[in-house]
Structure formats: structure tokens, C-alpha cells
């Protein structure tokens, strides 16, 4: 991770940095789609189409359907996924011939930046509550399958694993706390930098 950051800073040209960021965005969308049980290939293909679209014009789901071989319902699923993460936005318009309501989708990069900052803050919050939990509790684990129990739960079981009957061991979570704290301080600093980047312009 550190190496990546270094690359960002040194970046030979602005275009390369830009490409790097866009690739990260692609990876992000791919993972989002995977976890939402959607076809990740389709998601990244649609993202690429949206990235090429002129934000002033936008593109409708029917147009995307005709450009690719995917079903319209699937295309809409991906668009909604992107919209849920606030990576893409839409504009309401009318069908040029029938006059039916149509939605024109596009990507506004400023919106994407804001969404990423929001996402980073949400992740930071999760990490913070995890670090509080880890440092306020003592953990015991089963030496065989590594299941973790808090002190209270382990005490109820008389420090014997309810599944296999072996003695529970004290789980040293100092490393976890160190990693979490390091990540939290890095993220906090990064969010500050990102905010100054986005809001100063």
C-alpha cells in the first residue's frame, strides 16, 4: 500500500496518475459488483461506457443495451449499483419519439470524488469502532479452529472450547490494534488531504 502512495506522488505525468486513479475506480466497481452478486465483467464494461460518455448528454439504459449484449434488466441492475455508491448520476429526460420518461446516465467526477471521501469516512468509522472493541476486550481462541471468544463468553464455557473440548488460549490482539491504529491515522490524514483537494478547487 505504501508503494502505491509513493507512485501516486512521484507520477511522471498527470495522465499516468489519472489512469492510475481510474484503474483503482475500476477495481472498486469490480469488487462492488462481485459482492453484490452481479457479473463483475459486465459492471466494468458498463463503467467504461459511462466513463466515455459526455456528462452533458448522458446515456440511456437502452443505448447501453444496444452497445453491449447484456439484458436491459442486468444493465439497470449495474446502473443502480453504481448509483447506490453515488458513482454515477442520472438526468430525467424524454424519449425523442415516444415521449416516455427516460433516464440519461453519466459520471460526474466531482461527485465521484465526494463519494470516495464519504466512503473513506465510513470505513474509518468502522475501523475506529473495531479498534475500540479490540482494546476494551480480552479474547480467547480455540487452538484448533481459531474461533475467538470474548472473556465473558469464554468464562461461561470455563475456558473450554464448546465445539472440540480443547482448552482456550489467550489471544494476543496487540498486532491487530497496531495495524488498525496505523491504518486509522493514515486514513485520517488522507481524508484531510483529499478534502483540501476537492474543496479548494
Amino acid at each position, binding site marked *: 500500500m505504501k508503494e502505491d502512495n509513493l507512485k501516486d506522488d512521484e507520477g511522471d505525468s498527470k495522465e499516468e496518475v*489519472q489512469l492510475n*486513479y481510474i484503474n*483503482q*475506480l475500476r477495481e472498486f466497481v469490480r469488487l462492488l459488483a462481485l459482492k453484490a452478486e452481479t457479473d463483475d465483467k459486465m459492471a466494468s464494461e458498463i463503467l467504461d461506457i459511462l466513463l466515455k460518455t459526455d456528462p452533458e448528454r448522458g446515456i440511456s439504459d437502452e443505448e447501453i443495451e444496444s452497445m453491449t449484449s447484456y439484458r436491459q434488466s442486468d444493465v439497470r441492475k449495474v446502473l443502480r449499483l453504481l448509483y447506490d455508491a453515488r458513482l454515477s448520476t442520472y438526468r430525467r429526460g424524454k424519449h425523442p419519439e415516444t415521449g416516455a420518461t427516460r433516464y440519461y446516465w453519466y459520471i460526474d467526477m466531482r461527485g465521484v470524488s465526494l463519494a470516495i471521501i464519504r466512503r473513506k469516512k465510513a470505513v474509518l468509522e*468502522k475501523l475506529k469502532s473495531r479498534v475500540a472493541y479490540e482494546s476494551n476486550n480480552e479474547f480467547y481462541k480455540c487452538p484448533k479452529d481459531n474461533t475467538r471468544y470474548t472473556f465473558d463468553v469464554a468464562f461461561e464455557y470455563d475456558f473450554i472450547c464448546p465445539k472440540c473440548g480443547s482448552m482456550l488460549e489467550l489471544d494476543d490482539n496487540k498486532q491487530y490494534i497496531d495495524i488498525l491504529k496505523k491504518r486509522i491515522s*493514515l486514513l485520517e490524514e*488522507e481524508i484531510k488531504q483529499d478534502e483540501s483537494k*476537492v474543496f479548494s478547487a
Partner: protein
Amino acid sequence: MTEVHGRLPRNSDEVEKAALETIKDHKDGVLQSELWKMMGLDSREGSRLVLRLAKKGLIKREQVIVNGRRTYRLFITEKPIESKLLNISLSSILDIPCTTCPHIDECGLGGYYEPSTCPLMELWLRKEVKLSIIRKKQLMQQAE
């Protein structure tokens, strides 16, 4: 009533476009108070419209006093380049499972999904510990 009725079908997108065009035509800028009169809006709608455009970075506002009243002179800004460029890195959070978790908004203390007992987070922490040990070993080897 008819007047109100006549305005209704115009959606905010069309109004914004029209306003931008009007501002574009005036190279020395146009007064906010003149703009809404020209477009047939009332002052409340006008000021909201201008705020919206300013938020999008499409126009610039400059405060002026005309006839003892404060108003804004509006200028068109050159197309914001940054709206087409992404200048934020995602690399620092991509490996954390929460980043792409579909339950990120439902997850919280005391909820069904909880960051403190999340098994995915635990797996990630375990992986990170392993990674850090490997990194340390590599550093040691390099030093040798």
C-alpha cells in the same frame, strides 16, 4: 393561476440551461436581479437557481450593490476541468473489506451487522498480520 400553470412544465434542467445561456450572452456579467426578471421567474426561484449553478461550478458570483441593495453579478466560468478528472486515490482502502461491503450503511454498533464482531474484518486483520510478518522478514533478508 394561469401564470403559475404556465411555469410548471419547465423542469429545473431546462431552466438551468436557459439561465446559463443568458449569462453566456452577457460578457460583462449579468445582475442576478436582472436575470430572474428576464427569465420570468420570481426572486426566490432566481436565487435558488443561481445557488444551484454556483454549486455546480458553472458560474461565478460577485457581490455588488445596486440602488442600495445587495445583489450578485454573475459570470460564466470556463468549463470546470476537474469535473472530468478524478484526483483522489482509492488505493488506501481498496484492501479493507468494508470498502466494498454491501452492508456498509447498515453496519454499526448494536446492529445485525457490527464492525466489532464482523468475521470479514477479522479475516482481513489476520491477513494483515501475516503480511506484516512477511514484510518484516523480507526487510531482514534485505538487510543481511
